[in-house]
Protein backbone atom coordinates (compact mmCIF):
# COMPACT_ATOMS: atom_id res chain seq x y z
CA UNK A 1 0.00 0.00 0.00
CA UNK A 2 1.13 3.55 -0.73
CA UNK A 3 2.50 5.40 2.23
CA UNK A 4 1.38 8.93 2.98
CA UNK A 5 3.73 9.52 5.89
CA UNK A 6 6.88 7.68 6.93
CA UNK A 7 9.03 8.64 9.87
CA UNK A 8 12.20 6.65 10.42
CA UNK A 9 13.91 7.09 13.78
CA UNK A 10 13.10 10.78 13.90
CA UNK A 11 14.29 13.16 16.62
CA UNK A 12 13.11 16.75 16.76
CA UNK A 13 14.74 19.30 19.02
CA UNK A 14 13.50 22.88 19.35
CA UNK A 15 16.05 25.56 18.66
CA UNK A 16 18.07 26.30 21.76
CA UNK A 17 16.83 23.22 23.64
CA UNK A 18 18.94 20.26 24.68
CA UNK A 19 16.34 17.57 25.21
CA UNK A 20 14.58 16.38 22.07
CA UNK A 21 10.83 16.83 22.07
CA UNK A 22 10.49 13.83 19.79
CA UNK A 23 12.66 10.80 20.42
CA UNK A 24 13.23 8.07 17.93
CA UNK A 25 9.81 8.23 16.33
CA UNK A 26 8.91 5.52 13.85
CA UNK A 27 5.57 5.97 12.19
CA UNK A 28 4.02 4.78 8.97
CA UNK A 29 0.68 6.04 7.79
CA UNK A 30 -0.92 4.62 4.66
CA UNK A 31 -2.72 6.77 2.16
CA UNK A 32 -6.36 7.10 3.07
CA UNK A 33 -5.90 6.21 6.72
CA UNK A 34 -7.56 8.20 9.48
CA UNK A 35 -5.50 8.19 12.65
CA UNK A 36 -5.90 9.91 15.98
CA UNK A 37 -3.06 10.87 18.30
CA UNK A 38 -3.70 11.11 22.00
CA UNK A 39 -1.43 11.80 24.94
CA UNK A 40 -0.94 14.15 27.86
CA UNK A 41 0.14 17.79 27.61
CA UNK A 42 3.71 18.15 26.50
CA UNK A 43 3.81 14.63 25.02
CA UNK A 44 5.01 15.93 21.66
CA UNK A 45 1.82 15.73 19.61
CA UNK A 46 2.09 19.23 18.16
CA UNK A 47 5.80 18.71 17.58
CA UNK A 48 5.03 15.52 15.67
CA UNK A 49 2.53 17.24 13.37
CA UNK A 50 4.91 20.09 12.66
CA UNK A 51 7.72 17.67 11.97
CA UNK A 52 5.51 15.94 9.42
CA UNK A 53 4.68 19.14 7.53
CA UNK A 54 8.19 20.48 7.82
CA UNK A 55 7.44 23.54 9.93
CA UNK A 56 9.96 22.00 12.31
CA UNK A 57 13.08 20.38 11.01
CA UNK A 58 13.96 16.97 12.37
CA UNK A 59 17.46 16.62 13.73
CA UNK A 60 17.81 12.91 13.14
CA UNK A 61 16.20 10.28 11.02
CA UNK A 62 14.12 10.55 7.88
CA UNK A 63 10.74 12.14 7.26
CA UNK A 64 9.10 11.07 4.03
CA UNK A 65 5.78 12.63 3.09
CA UNK A 66 3.89 11.57 -0.03
CA UNK A 67 7.03 9.84 -1.23
CA UNK A 68 9.26 12.90 -0.87
CA UNK A 69 11.92 13.20 1.76
CA UNK A 70 11.77 16.44 3.70
CA UNK A 71 15.03 18.22 4.09
CA UNK A 72 14.89 21.76 5.22
CA UNK A 73 12.36 23.33 2.96
CA UNK A 74 8.98 21.70 3.32
CA UNK A 75 7.15 24.27 1.27
CA UNK A 76 6.41 21.98 -1.64
CA UNK A 77 4.96 19.41 0.73
CA UNK A 78 2.91 21.99 2.61
CA UNK A 79 1.10 22.84 -0.60
CA UNK A 80 -0.36 19.33 -0.41
CA UNK A 81 -0.76 19.02 3.33
CA UNK A 82 -3.46 20.86 5.26
CA UNK A 83 -2.93 21.97 8.81
CA UNK A 84 -5.27 23.15 11.52
CA UNK A 85 -2.91 24.46 14.20
CA UNK A 86 -3.64 24.11 17.89
CA UNK A 87 -3.35 27.80 18.48
CA UNK A 88 -3.34 30.81 16.28
CA UNK A 89 -3.35 34.38 17.43
CA UNK A 90 -6.07 36.33 15.72
CA UNK A 91 -6.57 39.63 17.46
CA UNK A 92 -9.85 41.44 17.55
CA UNK A 93 -8.93 44.05 14.95
CA UNK A 94 -7.62 41.60 12.33
CA UNK A 95 -8.83 43.09 9.04
CA UNK A 96 -9.85 39.90 7.26
CA UNK A 97 -13.29 38.51 6.53
CA UNK A 98 -14.16 34.89 7.16
CA UNK A 99 -14.78 34.18 3.48
CA UNK A 100 -11.30 35.47 2.60
CA UNK A 101 -9.63 33.50 5.36
CA UNK A 102 -11.20 30.27 4.10
CA UNK A 103 -10.35 31.01 0.47
CA UNK A 104 -6.76 31.75 1.51
CA UNK A 105 -6.44 28.14 2.59
CA UNK A 106 -6.14 27.33 -1.11
CA UNK A 107 -3.55 29.97 -2.02
CA UNK A 108 -0.48 27.86 -1.34
CA UNK A 109 -1.95 25.02 -3.35
CA UNK A 110 -2.93 27.26 -6.27
CA UNK A 111 0.70 28.26 -6.50
CA UNK A 112 2.75 31.31 -7.45
CA UNK A 113 1.50 33.48 -10.29
CA UNK A 114 -1.62 31.38 -10.85
CA UNK A 115 -4.95 33.19 -10.62
CA UNK A 116 -7.71 32.46 -8.14
CA UNK A 117 -10.45 30.85 -10.16
CA UNK A 118 -14.21 30.70 -9.80
CA UNK A 119 -13.79 27.08 -8.83
CA UNK A 120 -11.53 28.07 -5.92
CA UNK A 121 -14.13 30.52 -4.66
CA UNK A 122 -16.88 27.97 -5.03
CA UNK A 123 -14.99 25.34 -3.06
CA UNK A 124 -14.31 27.84 -0.29
CA UNK A 125 -17.96 28.79 -0.19
CA UNK A 126 -19.04 25.17 -0.13
CA UNK A 127 -16.81 24.46 2.83
CA UNK A 128 -18.22 27.42 4.71
CA UNK A 129 -21.72 26.07 4.03
CA UNK A 130 -20.62 22.54 4.91
CA UNK A 131 -19.50 23.61 8.35
CA UNK A 132 -22.68 25.58 8.85
CA UNK A 133 -21.02 28.95 9.21
CA UNK A 134 -22.37 30.73 6.13
CA UNK A 135 -23.93 33.38 8.36
CA UNK A 136 -20.39 34.32 9.47
CA UNK A 137 -19.03 34.51 5.97
CA UNK A 138 -18.82 38.31 5.78
CA UNK A 139 -17.83 38.94 9.36
CA UNK A 140 -14.32 39.94 10.42
CA UNK A 141 -12.50 36.89 11.71
CA UNK A 142 -11.30 38.69 14.85
CA UNK A 143 -14.85 39.23 16.04
CA UNK A 144 -15.79 35.56 16.22
CA UNK A 145 -16.05 33.42 19.31
CA UNK A 146 -13.37 30.79 19.92
CA UNK A 147 -15.54 27.99 18.59
CA UNK A 148 -16.69 29.93 15.56
CA UNK A 149 -13.09 30.77 14.70
CA UNK A 150 -12.15 27.13 15.07
CA UNK A 151 -14.81 26.12 12.57
CA UNK A 152 -13.42 28.71 10.19
CA UNK A 153 -9.94 27.21 10.54
CA UNK A 154 -11.33 23.74 9.82
CA UNK A 155 -13.23 25.06 6.79
CA UNK A 156 -10.03 26.72 5.64
CA UNK A 157 -8.08 23.48 5.86
CA UNK A 158 -10.80 21.45 4.13
CA UNK A 159 -11.12 24.07 1.38
CA UNK A 160 -7.55 23.30 0.45
CA UNK A 161 -8.56 19.73 -0.41
CA UNK A 162 -5.18 18.52 0.74
CA UNK A 163 -3.87 15.00 0.31
CA UNK A 164 -3.05 14.84 3.98
CA UNK A 165 -4.84 16.80 6.65
CA UNK A 166 -3.17 17.37 10.02
CA UNK A 167 -5.40 18.72 12.75
CA UNK A 168 -4.22 19.71 16.19
CA UNK A 169 -7.08 19.57 18.68
CA UNK A 170 -9.54 21.06 16.23
CA UNK A 171 -12.43 20.59 18.63
CA UNK A 172 -10.94 22.19 21.72
CA UNK A 173 -13.23 25.22 21.58
CA UNK A 174 -16.34 23.48 20.27
CA UNK A 175 -19.33 22.64 22.41
CA UNK A 176 -20.32 18.99 22.65
CA UNK A 177 -22.97 19.17 20.02
CA UNK A 178 -20.63 20.91 17.60
CA UNK A 179 -17.92 18.33 18.29
CA UNK A 180 -20.26 15.55 17.34
CA UNK A 181 -21.44 17.39 14.27
CA UNK A 182 -17.97 18.38 12.99
CA UNK A 183 -16.62 14.94 13.84
CA UNK A 184 -19.30 13.36 11.63
CA UNK A 185 -18.56 15.82 8.88
CA UNK A 186 -14.88 14.96 8.98
CA UNK A 187 -15.76 11.27 8.74
CA UNK A 188 -17.95 11.97 5.78
CA UNK A 189 -15.35 14.17 4.12
CA UNK A 190 -12.69 11.54 4.64
CA UNK A 191 -14.82 8.85 3.03
CA UNK A 192 -15.71 10.92 0.02
CA UNK A 193 -12.22 12.29 -0.70
CA UNK A 194 -10.00 9.41 0.35
CA UNK A 195 -7.65 11.79 2.09
CA UNK A 196 -5.22 10.88 4.84
CA UNK A 197 -6.22 12.36 8.20
CA UNK A 198 -4.14 12.78 11.32
CA UNK A 199 -5.99 14.30 14.23
CA UNK A 200 -4.68 15.17 17.66
CA UNK A 201 -7.51 14.96 20.11
CA UNK A 202 -8.06 14.98 23.86
CA UNK A 203 -11.74 14.23 23.96
CA UNK A 204 -11.89 10.55 23.06
CA UNK A 205 -15.66 10.60 22.72
CA UNK A 206 -15.42 12.87 19.72
CA UNK A 207 -12.88 10.83 17.77
CA UNK A 208 -14.52 10.53 14.35
CA UNK A 209 -16.09 7.15 13.66
CA UNK A 210 -14.00 6.39 10.60
CA UNK A 211 -10.86 6.63 12.67
CA UNK A 212 -9.59 3.11 13.10
CA UNK A 213 -6.09 3.63 14.40
CA UNK A 214 -4.91 5.36 17.51
CA UNK A 215 -1.44 6.44 18.52
CA UNK A 216 -0.62 7.21 22.12
CA UNK A 217 2.28 9.53 22.82
CA UNK A 218 4.05 10.36 26.02
CA UNK A 219 7.29 12.18 26.76
CA UNK A 220 8.27 12.50 23.11
CA UNK A 221 7.68 8.85 22.28
CA UNK A 222 5.00 6.76 20.70
CA UNK A 223 4.03 4.37 23.46
CA UNK A 224 1.20 2.61 21.74
CA UNK A 225 -0.02 2.33 18.17
CA UNK A 226 -2.87 0.14 17.13
CA UNK A 227 -6.51 -0.43 16.34
CA UNK A 228 -9.00 1.73 18.12
CA UNK A 229 -10.57 -1.22 19.94
CA UNK A 230 -7.19 -2.36 21.22
CA UNK A 231 -5.93 1.02 22.33
CA UNK A 232 -9.03 2.36 23.96
CA UNK A 233 -9.10 -0.50 26.45
CA UNK A 234 -9.30 0.91 29.94
CA UNK A 235 -6.07 -0.78 31.14
CA UNK A 236 -4.03 0.59 28.29
CA UNK A 237 -5.38 4.07 28.73
CA UNK A 238 -4.61 3.88 32.38
CA UNK A 239 -1.01 3.09 31.56
CA UNK A 240 -0.23 5.54 28.84
CA UNK A 241 -2.70 8.26 29.10
CA UNK A 242 -4.04 8.94 32.51
CA UNK A 243 -6.70 11.42 33.11
CA UNK A 244 -8.99 11.01 30.15
CA UNK A 245 -12.52 10.57 31.11
CA UNK A 246 -15.13 10.36 28.50
Amino acid at each position, binding site marked *: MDKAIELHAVDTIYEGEKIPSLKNINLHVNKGEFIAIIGPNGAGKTTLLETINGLLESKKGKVIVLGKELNGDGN*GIRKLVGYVPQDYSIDELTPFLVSDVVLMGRF*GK*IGLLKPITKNDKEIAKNMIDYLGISDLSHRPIGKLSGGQAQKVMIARALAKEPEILLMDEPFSNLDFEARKDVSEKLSHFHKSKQMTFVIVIHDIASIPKVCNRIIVMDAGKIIADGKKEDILKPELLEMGYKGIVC
Partner: protein
Amino acid sequence: MLELVFTKILLFAIIGAVLTGFTCSLMGTFVVRMNLSSLGFAMSHAAFAGAALGIFLRKDPLIFALLFSIFVSLALGPLADKAKLKTDVIIGVIFSLSMAIGLLFLNMSPDTAMSSTALRILWGSVLGMTTADIMYLLIISVITIIFVMLFFKEINSILFDRKLARASGINDKPFYYLILFLTSVTVAFSLKLVGGLLVFALMINPTSSVYQFTYDMKKIILLSPIVGVISCLLGILMSFSFDLPTGSAIAIVCSAIFGVSVLVSPKRRKG
Protein backbone atom coordinates in the same frame (compact mmCIF):
# COMPACT_ATOMS: atom_id res chain seq x y z
CA MET B 1 9.02 82.43 -19.15
CA LEU B 2 8.72 82.72 -15.40
CA GLU B 3 5.22 81.43 -15.68
CA LEU B 4 6.42 78.41 -17.62
CA VAL B 5 8.96 77.59 -14.93
CA PHE B 6 6.29 77.92 -12.32
CA THR B 7 3.92 75.66 -14.26
CA LYS B 8 6.65 73.07 -14.51
CA ILE B 9 7.35 73.22 -10.80
CA LEU B 10 3.68 72.92 -10.05
CA LEU B 11 3.23 70.05 -12.44
CA PHE B 12 6.21 68.18 -11.03
CA ALA B 13 5.01 68.85 -7.53
CA ILE B 14 1.59 67.44 -8.33
CA ILE B 15 2.89 64.35 -10.12
CA GLY B 16 5.46 63.86 -7.38
CA ALA B 17 2.77 64.16 -4.73
CA VAL B 18 0.52 61.63 -6.41
CA LEU B 19 3.29 59.09 -6.83
CA THR B 20 4.78 59.61 -3.38
CA GLY B 21 1.40 59.44 -1.68
CA PHE B 22 0.55 56.33 -3.61
CA THR B 23 3.64 54.21 -2.93
CA CYS B 24 4.23 55.36 0.63
CA SER B 25 0.69 54.55 1.64
CA LEU B 26 0.61 51.28 -0.24
CA MET B 27 3.78 50.06 1.43
CA GLY B 28 2.42 51.56 4.62
CA THR B 29 -0.49 49.09 4.62
CA PHE B 30 2.04 46.26 4.79
CA VAL B 31 4.24 48.00 7.31
CA VAL B 32 1.32 48.63 9.66
CA ARG B 33 -0.25 45.21 9.33
CA MET B 34 3.06 43.39 9.79
CA ASN B 35 3.98 45.47 12.84
CA LEU B 36 7.02 46.87 11.11
CA SER B 37 6.30 50.45 12.08
CA SER B 38 9.42 50.91 14.12
CA LEU B 39 11.47 49.41 11.32
CA GLY B 40 9.93 51.88 8.87
CA PHE B 41 10.70 54.64 11.30
CA ALA B 42 14.34 53.58 11.50
CA MET B 43 14.54 53.32 7.71
CA SER B 44 13.28 56.82 7.14
CA HIS B 45 15.79 58.28 9.54
CA ALA B 46 18.61 56.24 8.09
CA ALA B 47 17.64 57.58 4.69
CA PHE B 48 17.88 61.07 6.11
CA ALA B 49 21.34 60.38 7.53
CA GLY B 50 22.40 58.96 4.17
CA ALA B 51 21.18 62.01 2.31
CA ALA B 52 23.03 64.24 4.76
CA LEU B 53 26.20 62.30 4.12
CA GLY B 54 25.62 62.70 0.38
CA ILE B 55 25.33 66.46 0.78
CA PHE B 56 28.43 66.55 2.92
CA LEU B 57 30.38 64.60 0.28
CA ARG B 58 28.84 66.72 -2.45
CA LYS B 59 27.47 63.60 -4.11
CA ASP B 60 23.92 62.72 -5.02
CA PRO B 61 22.06 62.52 -1.69
CA LEU B 62 19.54 60.11 -3.18
CA ILE B 63 22.05 57.32 -3.68
CA PHE B 64 23.25 57.55 -0.11
CA ALA B 65 19.72 57.74 1.21
CA LEU B 66 18.93 54.61 -0.77
CA LEU B 67 21.99 52.76 0.47
CA PHE B 68 21.38 53.69 4.09
CA SER B 69 17.71 52.74 4.16
CA ILE B 70 18.30 49.48 2.31
CA PHE B 71 21.13 48.73 4.71
CA VAL B 72 18.85 49.26 7.70
CA SER B 73 16.11 47.08 6.24
CA LEU B 74 18.52 44.25 5.51
CA ALA B 75 20.37 44.57 8.81
CA LEU B 76 17.31 44.84 11.03
CA GLY B 77 14.94 42.72 8.96
CA PRO B 78 16.26 39.38 10.26
CA LEU B 79 16.17 40.64 13.84
CA ALA B 80 12.61 41.86 13.56
CA ASP B 81 11.79 38.59 11.80
CA LYS B 82 13.06 36.25 14.46
CA ALA B 83 12.05 38.49 17.34
CA LYS B 84 15.18 37.26 19.05
CA LEU B 85 16.19 40.67 20.26
CA LYS B 86 14.04 43.48 21.45
CA THR B 87 13.81 45.26 18.13
CA ASP B 88 12.48 48.35 19.84
CA VAL B 89 15.80 48.83 21.54
CA ILE B 90 17.90 48.35 18.44
CA ILE B 91 15.62 50.50 16.38
CA GLY B 92 15.79 53.19 19.06
CA VAL B 93 19.55 53.07 18.87
CA ILE B 94 19.58 53.22 15.06
CA PHE B 95 17.11 56.06 15.12
CA SER B 96 19.09 58.29 17.45
CA LEU B 97 22.35 57.32 15.78
CA SER B 98 21.10 58.21 12.32
CA MET B 99 19.67 61.50 13.51
CA ALA B 100 22.97 62.33 15.16
CA ILE B 101 24.98 61.37 12.09
CA GLY B 102 22.60 63.20 9.78
CA LEU B 103 22.66 66.45 11.72
CA LEU B 104 26.40 66.19 12.15
CA PHE B 105 26.98 65.90 8.41
CA LEU B 106 24.58 68.73 7.70
CA ASN B 107 26.40 70.87 10.19
CA MET B 108 29.79 70.02 8.77
CA SER B 109 28.78 70.62 5.19
CA PRO B 110 30.64 73.77 4.22
CA ASP B 111 28.55 76.69 3.01
CA THR B 112 25.44 74.59 2.56
CA ALA B 113 25.30 74.03 6.29
CA MET B 114 21.68 74.27 7.34
CA SER B 115 21.03 75.90 4.05
CA SER B 116 17.89 75.28 2.12
CA THR B 117 19.22 72.21 0.26
CA ALA B 118 20.09 70.59 3.52
CA LEU B 119 16.86 71.47 5.20
CA ARG B 120 14.90 70.15 2.29
CA ILE B 121 15.86 66.58 3.07
CA LEU B 122 14.58 67.08 6.59
CA TRP B 123 11.29 68.76 5.83
CA GLY B 124 10.78 68.05 2.17
CA SER B 125 10.17 70.53 -0.60
CA VAL B 126 8.04 70.89 -3.68
CA LEU B 127 10.68 72.97 -5.35
CA GLY B 128 13.43 70.46 -5.85
CA MET B 129 11.62 67.82 -7.88
CA THR B 130 13.58 66.93 -11.00
CA THR B 131 12.61 64.81 -13.97
CA ALA B 132 14.84 62.09 -12.56
CA ASP B 133 13.04 62.19 -9.20
CA ILE B 134 9.72 61.82 -10.95
CA MET B 135 11.07 58.93 -12.98
CA TYR B 136 12.31 57.13 -9.87
CA LEU B 137 8.99 57.60 -8.15
CA LEU B 138 7.17 56.38 -11.22
CA ILE B 139 9.36 53.29 -11.44
CA ILE B 140 8.92 52.37 -7.78
CA SER B 141 5.16 52.97 -8.03
CA VAL B 142 4.88 50.68 -11.02
CA ILE B 143 7.04 48.04 -9.33
CA THR B 144 4.94 48.07 -6.17
CA ILE B 145 1.70 47.82 -8.16
CA ILE B 146 3.04 44.90 -10.16
CA PHE B 147 4.36 43.29 -6.99
CA VAL B 148 0.96 43.49 -5.30
CA MET B 149 -0.96 42.30 -8.35
CA LEU B 150 1.31 39.38 -9.18
CA PHE B 151 1.62 38.15 -5.62
CA PHE B 152 -1.72 39.19 -4.21
CA LYS B 153 -2.42 35.69 -2.89
CA GLU B 154 0.89 35.37 -1.14
CA ILE B 155 0.93 38.90 0.25
CA ASN B 156 -2.65 38.61 1.45
CA SER B 157 -1.93 35.31 3.22
CA ILE B 158 1.18 36.71 4.85
CA LEU B 159 -0.63 39.85 5.96
CA PHE B 160 -3.24 37.65 7.60
CA ASP B 161 -0.77 35.50 9.47
CA ARG B 162 2.76 34.56 8.58
CA LYS B 163 2.77 31.23 10.33
CA LEU B 164 -0.53 30.16 8.81
CA ALA B 165 0.71 31.29 5.42
CA ARG B 166 3.84 29.19 5.82
CA ALA B 167 1.76 26.24 7.01
CA SER B 168 -0.33 26.47 3.87
CA GLY B 169 2.67 26.19 1.58
CA ILE B 170 3.61 29.80 0.99
CA ASN B 171 7.25 30.69 1.17
CA ASP B 172 6.92 33.75 3.37
CA LYS B 173 10.58 34.75 3.77
CA PRO B 174 11.26 36.15 0.30
CA PHE B 175 8.05 38.17 0.49
CA TYR B 176 8.93 39.56 3.88
CA TYR B 177 12.28 40.74 2.58
CA LEU B 178 10.81 42.05 -0.65
CA ILE B 179 8.34 44.11 1.35
CA LEU B 180 11.17 45.48 3.49
CA PHE B 181 13.30 46.20 0.45
CA LEU B 182 10.53 47.96 -1.48
CA THR B 183 9.67 49.95 1.63
CA SER B 184 13.23 51.18 2.02
CA VAL B 185 13.45 52.16 -1.64
CA THR B 186 10.12 53.96 -1.37
CA VAL B 187 11.34 55.82 1.70
CA ALA B 188 14.49 56.95 -0.04
CA PHE B 189 12.69 58.13 -3.18
CA SER B 190 10.09 59.99 -1.13
CA LEU B 191 12.71 61.90 0.81
CA LYS B 192 12.90 64.78 -1.62
CA LEU B 193 9.25 65.69 -1.47
CA VAL B 194 8.26 64.73 2.04
CA GLY B 195 11.57 64.84 3.89
CA GLY B 196 13.25 62.31 6.12
CA LEU B 197 11.46 63.28 9.27
CA LEU B 198 7.97 63.02 7.93
CA VAL B 199 7.91 60.33 5.25
CA PHE B 200 7.02 57.94 8.01
CA ALA B 201 3.82 59.84 8.76
CA LEU B 202 2.77 59.32 5.17
CA MET B 203 3.25 55.57 5.48
CA ILE B 204 1.35 55.13 8.72
CA ASN B 205 -1.47 57.68 8.72
CA PRO B 206 -3.41 56.91 5.54
CA THR B 207 -3.64 53.19 6.20
CA SER B 208 -4.43 53.79 9.87
CA SER B 209 -7.24 56.08 8.74
CA VAL B 210 -8.71 53.46 6.43
CA TYR B 211 -8.43 50.89 9.24
CA GLN B 212 -11.04 52.88 11.11
CA PHE B 213 -13.68 52.09 8.52
CA THR B 214 -13.26 48.54 7.34
CA TYR B 215 -12.19 45.07 8.39
CA ASP B 216 -11.58 44.04 4.81
CA MET B 217 -7.89 43.95 3.91
CA LYS B 218 -8.66 44.14 0.18
CA LYS B 219 -10.38 47.48 0.75
CA ILE B 220 -7.56 48.68 2.97
CA ILE B 221 -5.02 47.90 0.25
CA LEU B 222 -7.15 49.72 -2.32
CA LEU B 223 -8.13 52.76 -0.27
CA SER B 224 -4.95 53.57 1.65
CA PRO B 225 -3.05 54.74 -1.45
CA ILE B 226 -6.03 56.91 -2.40
CA VAL B 227 -6.00 58.56 1.02
CA GLY B 228 -2.22 58.92 0.68
CA VAL B 229 -2.56 60.67 -2.68
CA ILE B 230 -5.25 63.00 -1.33
CA SER B 231 -3.08 63.84 1.69
CA CYS B 232 -0.15 64.68 -0.54
CA LEU B 233 -2.18 66.81 -2.91
CA LEU B 234 -3.81 68.76 -0.09
CA GLY B 235 -0.39 68.98 1.54
CA ILE B 236 1.30 70.60 -1.43
CA LEU B 237 -1.66 72.90 -1.86
CA MET B 238 -1.16 74.00 1.73
CA SER B 239 2.56 74.18 1.23
CA PHE B 240 2.17 76.47 -1.80
CA SER B 241 -0.54 78.59 -0.26
CA PHE B 242 1.04 79.23 3.10
CA ASP B 243 4.66 78.72 2.16
CA LEU B 244 5.06 75.78 4.56
CA PRO B 245 7.64 73.02 4.29
CA THR B 246 6.01 70.34 2.12
CA GLY B 247 6.65 67.47 4.49
CA SER B 248 5.12 69.32 7.41
CA ALA B 249 2.07 70.25 5.40
CA ILE B 250 1.56 66.67 4.20
CA ALA B 251 2.10 65.29 7.68
CA ILE B 252 -0.41 67.74 9.13
CA VAL B 253 -3.00 66.86 6.51
CA CYS B 254 -2.68 63.11 6.90
CA SER B 255 -2.62 63.34 10.68
CA ALA B 256 -5.77 65.45 10.51
CA ILE B 257 -7.40 62.85 8.26
CA PHE B 258 -6.42 60.19 10.75
CA GLY B 259 -7.77 62.21 13.66
CA VAL B 260 -11.11 62.75 11.96
CA SER B 261 -11.25 59.07 10.97
CA VAL B 262 -10.81 58.01 14.57
CA LEU B 263 -13.51 60.42 15.67
CA VAL B 264 -16.09 59.27 13.17
CA SER B 265 -14.99 55.63 13.07
CA PRO B 266 -17.91 53.22 13.25
CA LYS B 267 -15.50 50.77 14.91
CA ARG B 268 -15.24 52.96 17.95
CA ARG B 269 -18.86 53.81 18.25
CA LYS B 270 -20.55 52.02 21.07
CA GLY B 271 -23.51 49.75 20.49
